[in-house]
């Protein structure tokens, strides 16, 4: 490989890294840009991520598929949760394997095998990154009254905007 080819190869690698960073950004940003805003009940708890810092872990009722239903779902399966407006909040409907034809719905992925308490599903809206004190305060203050403000893209991909009091 001569010097000119090497220069091109390095430029390609750096461009690839830029494209990856842009891809991660677009992936996180486009539901905020295109999505409809919904408000969902949630409960925060506080762990620490080795790479991304402190965050409040949010648990939603629809993160768990009931034991009876979960036998049909395997880890890695894509699932959908239709949302129905109920006043100021949106209520989750039973999890389904097929994409709803209309309405607002969340797209998630099964991340555990069926267990006594059911299977776990994640939707990409389970972490609110915040400084440690804020994450701990959120956990204490909003334990029973937290509402997640989420924007949901037409394909079900969701992005977390904020967590407020009910």
């Amino acid at each position, binding site marked *: 490989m001569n010097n000119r080819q090497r220069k091109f190869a390095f430029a390609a690698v750096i461009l690839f890294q830029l494209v990856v960073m842009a891809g*991660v950004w677009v992936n996180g940003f486009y539901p905020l840009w295109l999505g409809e805003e919904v408000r969902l009940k949630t409960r925060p708890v506080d762990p620490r991520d080795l790479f991304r810092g402190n965050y409040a872990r949010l648990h939603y009722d629809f993160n768990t598929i009931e034991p009876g239903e979960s036998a049909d779902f395997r880890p890695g399966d894509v699932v959908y949760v239709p949302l129905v407006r109920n006043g100021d909040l949106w209520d989750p409907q039973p999890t389904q394997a097929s994409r709803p034809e209309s309405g607002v719905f969340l797209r998630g992925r099964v991340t555990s095998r069926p267990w006594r308490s059911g299977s776990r599903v994640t939707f990409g809206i389970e972490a609110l990154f915040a400084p440690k004190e804020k994450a701990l305060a959120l956990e204490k203050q909003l334990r029973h009254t937290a509402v997640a403000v989420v924007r949901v893209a037409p394909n079900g991909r969701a*992005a977390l905007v904020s967590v407020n009091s009910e």
Partner: protein
Amino acid sequence: MQLLGLLRRELRSECRQWVDDGDISAEQGERILARYGTSLEDVSDGSLAYKVLVGVALLFAGMAMMLLVSANWEEIPRAVRMLGLVATTLVLNGIGVRHFLRDGSGIGWLFVGSISYGASIMLIAQIYHLGEHFPDGLLVWALGVAPMALLTRSRVITLLMLALALFWLMAEGQFSPPWAMVLFLGCSVAVARMACSAGLMIVTVAAAVTWLNVLLGWAYGYPWRPDIEAGHLTLNMGLLALIFMAGHRLSVTTSVYLRRTATLLSLWALRGYLLLLLPFTFTEFCEGYLKELESVMDPGLWMGLLAAIPAAWLALRNRSAHPLSRGLVMGLPVVMVLLHGGSNEAMAVPVTVLVNLLVLGSAIVLVQQGLLKGLSQYFYSGVALLLVLGMMRYVDLVGDYVGGSVLFLLAAGILFLAAHYWRDRQGGAGHE
């Protein structure tokens, strides 16, 4: 086996002393050191200390950057935070590439640039609250570092890539079979070959063994999750045999780095073999293993055979290894099939006794080979193995007190015979 080749720095230092003292000429010193891929003029000792310290400093700088990103600078606008880190990545990589193209330096800049690239991905994930489960972030980080490692042939950047890939393997391996690991292993082997690095080759082999164990876990638990089963031991028996024989096969090559790789492979495979054998000297462990095996349809057996059969073929062709190790490797596929095929707990006591005798035999061979070839690592490994075996059997009896006593008597008899045989041979050699 070139165990001395693993101590090149010490050898170089000794050789310089011999030359200074007039014990050997400089030319002889050069010829001795050339056998181990080094020379009297080699000044890498001083630069190694520099490289290690700079490497650790760069790693700390990278960790500082990750922690800075983790600190959640809420008062700084999102766009400024993100563009700042992306720009930092571009600047670091730009400076690194410029230095590298000019005179082959700049690896430090590229290493920190690679960490900055990952920090950017993590920061974007943090800013946009991207999910709790984020192994994909690690995957794209490692994927971005891989071509940089290939282009620079840098060991330190490749090690960063492998570390990230292993983090990803552990994170993603819980949710799906981590097939993409093959890319990182391939990249690492390519860099190890281009950079003639025995150390990187060994780390890659260790990563490959970890990956194969995770894949076997998925073969057991598919589609729910990876399961740890008794068959994992069978797989690792096959892998150790293959690594050991591959080491012996490589030891005859003319390439110094491949010979060093071969020595390290054989040495670690031997240590792994001894560690794997020891639990099997306990009856309860053997019983559990035989009980858990899933007959001849066990995926662990089939994956183990995929490694053990080529190992047996290598053992058949390569006569440089000791007859006991060759015999064991050649017989391993049959032993594996017999254990899985006739897996019942009644076999536990005979298998335990056989393994105890095998450990004893291995220890004797290690002591004998250590003295014969002047390899102190082997000699002391053999002595330590004998003492550990004796202590374990005294605490944990096979076949109660009488059985334990018979086993000790048998062991004592074998040791006496081996000692006499050794003394007679030494005497014979002395007369010749």
